[in-house]
């Protein structure tokens, strides 16, 4: 395998360090900028130590209000709430639906079973961006524009998660199903008592992925929301760039970016143990 030598150790640490800098420095810069006053930011070069304006900037970003330069800032707090609700509905909805469809595909014999599976599988090739106009038309006709239903339902169906659960269910030994039948457990009972507990790590891993997926949605909300109260935070960042001559409130924009990063980061940190286990572990 790989030889350990001081030179090799040194080189690998250098590579790692470069990686960390490339990833972390922009985040650090964003954070520094969010703690400074607008005047401090536009000075070149920008200071690399935290400024004194942190509390004011974040209060302004979260709750909205007048800026020092006379612009209006709409509250990011509400956008975060919209994003949170959307991401949670998408993540939980995706998991619930794909669990059930994988359960049906693996454990029930119905006509055209494999056709159904392949149809679901083929939709992997049709991400939101590809089907965005027909989807918009459908959502608009159903009167779901500017609503949580419209924000989430078109994104809930998930071939990836269905496929992942199907693969997992296929590894569950048949004898377990048979033992449950002999114990008198019906299909839903088996699902609830045996399959769900066995899938917890996969569910946790998928929750992390899907939460971030839902949180980061940009194009779809951009298209189907026109009401301030339904803007998710990712869209909110974009909308803060003023058009024309208006000066951008860089400190508030940076604070919003940081705020947009915090919840997904928290989800990953809190669920990291299960997440890794779910991806790596085939233990049953």
């Amino acid at each position, binding site marked *: 395998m790989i030889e350990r030598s001081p030179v090799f150790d040194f080189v690998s640490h250098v590579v790692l360090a470069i990686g960390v800098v490339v990833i972390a420095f922009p985040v650090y810069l964003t954070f520094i900028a969010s703690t400074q006053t607008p005047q401090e930011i536009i000075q070149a070069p920008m200071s690399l130590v935290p400024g004194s304006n942190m509390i004011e900037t974040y209060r302004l970003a979260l709750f909205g209000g007048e800026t020092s330069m006379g612009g209006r800032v709409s509250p990011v707090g509400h956008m975060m709430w919209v994003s949170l609700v959307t991401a949670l509905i998408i993540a939980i909805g995706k998991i619930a639906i794909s669990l059930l469809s994988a359960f049906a595909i693996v454990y029930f014999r119905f006509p055209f079973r494999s056709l159904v599976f392949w149809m679901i599988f083929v939709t992997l090739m049709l991400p939101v961006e590809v089907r965005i106009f027909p989807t918009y038309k459908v959502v608009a006709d159903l009167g779901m524009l500017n609503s949580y239903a419209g924000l989430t339902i078109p994104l809930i169906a998930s071939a990836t998660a269905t496929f992942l659960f199907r693969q997992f269910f296929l590894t569950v030994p048949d*004898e377990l199903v*048979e033992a449950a*039948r002999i114990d008198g457990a019906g299909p839903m009972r088996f699902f609830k008592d045996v399959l769900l507990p066995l899938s917890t790590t996969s569910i946790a891993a998928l929750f992390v992925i899907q939460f971030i997926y839902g949180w980061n949605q940009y194009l779809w909300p951009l298209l189907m929301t026109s009401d301030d109260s339904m803007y998710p935070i990712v869209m909110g960042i974009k909308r803060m760039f003023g058009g024309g001559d208006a000066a951008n409130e860089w400190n508030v924009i940076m604070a919003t970016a940081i705020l947009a990063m915090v919840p997904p980061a928290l989800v990953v940190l809190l669920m990291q143990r299960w997440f890794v286990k779910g991806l790596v572990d085939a233990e*049953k």
Partner: protein
Amino acid sequence: MGAISLRKVVKRYGTGAAANQVIHGVDAEVSDGEFVVIVGPSGCGKSTLLRMVAGLEEITSGEIAIAGRVVNQLEPAERDIAMVFQNYALYPHMTVFENMAYGLKIARVPMAEIRARVDKAAAILELAPFLARRPRELSGGQRQRVAMGRAIVRQPAVYLFDEPLSNLDAKLRAQTRLEIQKLHRELRTTSLFVTHDQVEAMTLAERMIVMNAGRMEQIGTPDEVYHRPATTFVAAFIGSPPMNLVRGEAQGTGFRSGGQVLSLPAPVPRAGELVLGIRPEHVELGSDVAAGGWPVKVQALEMLGAERLVYGTLGETLFTARLDATARHPAIGDVVNIAARPEHMHWFDAATSMRVGH
């Protein structure tokens, strides 16, 4: 309690011309409290038959009754059975207690009674210290006992065992075999036990069913099956090393095989094409090659400790004799005369493989 009746049970996969029949009309009666072992080579349909009794496979035609009740259309849980699987099939996320209690919980047995029954089963199986553990924290033998415990707490009319010992190492297997025997003496519950291992079959069975290619070859006590095999298949399958089978033309006290006429100590039960079977331990070796004797040329010797196996050829046929290790034995290359007593000779019809005579 639970007698089992199998009446003309047939299993077929697929329909029409592509149908693949794996069980060809099995008839058997297992009386209440009996321990019956189904034994046969792999692919003979023994597991399928057991799974049909359990309700895990549909019955294509025929009838299966448990405790006098036809169960063809009943769900496994309604058949009053419990099954022990080859790989134990324990629920990995449940503790030993929960594993054993799960069926009762679904049947809505009161919690106090569940506790009592599980505790009792755990005491019998010496599982009491492990009730709070999960299956992955147990050894193979302990998991095996949990699987049996799960069957015991249901207090079923019938236990079904699907090769439950084959995942254990040899020592543990012998020990578990004894435990199952002891358990059956205590509980006296009807048991069907499937195995491909003839030692398990002989030691556990009160009666055994020998199956081959989806057909029942013989049903009887281990003694009967060993001493009076009903077909050449049973004769060759049960017993190790297997029975010597010599095909030939029989007439009076002469048996023509492979170009030589062997003389018999007693007249054959019937003239015609027959197969003669002699168990290795019933072969007697003499050194003098007399006229009409059975000359065997010794090809190999195997020393097994208590006994010695002598392999040779009688004409074209491979012939095995089993001698006491201390007995005088021939050397490789010797030609010796063999003989057997008439009561140790088994005769089978060469065309039908069925037993002929006594």
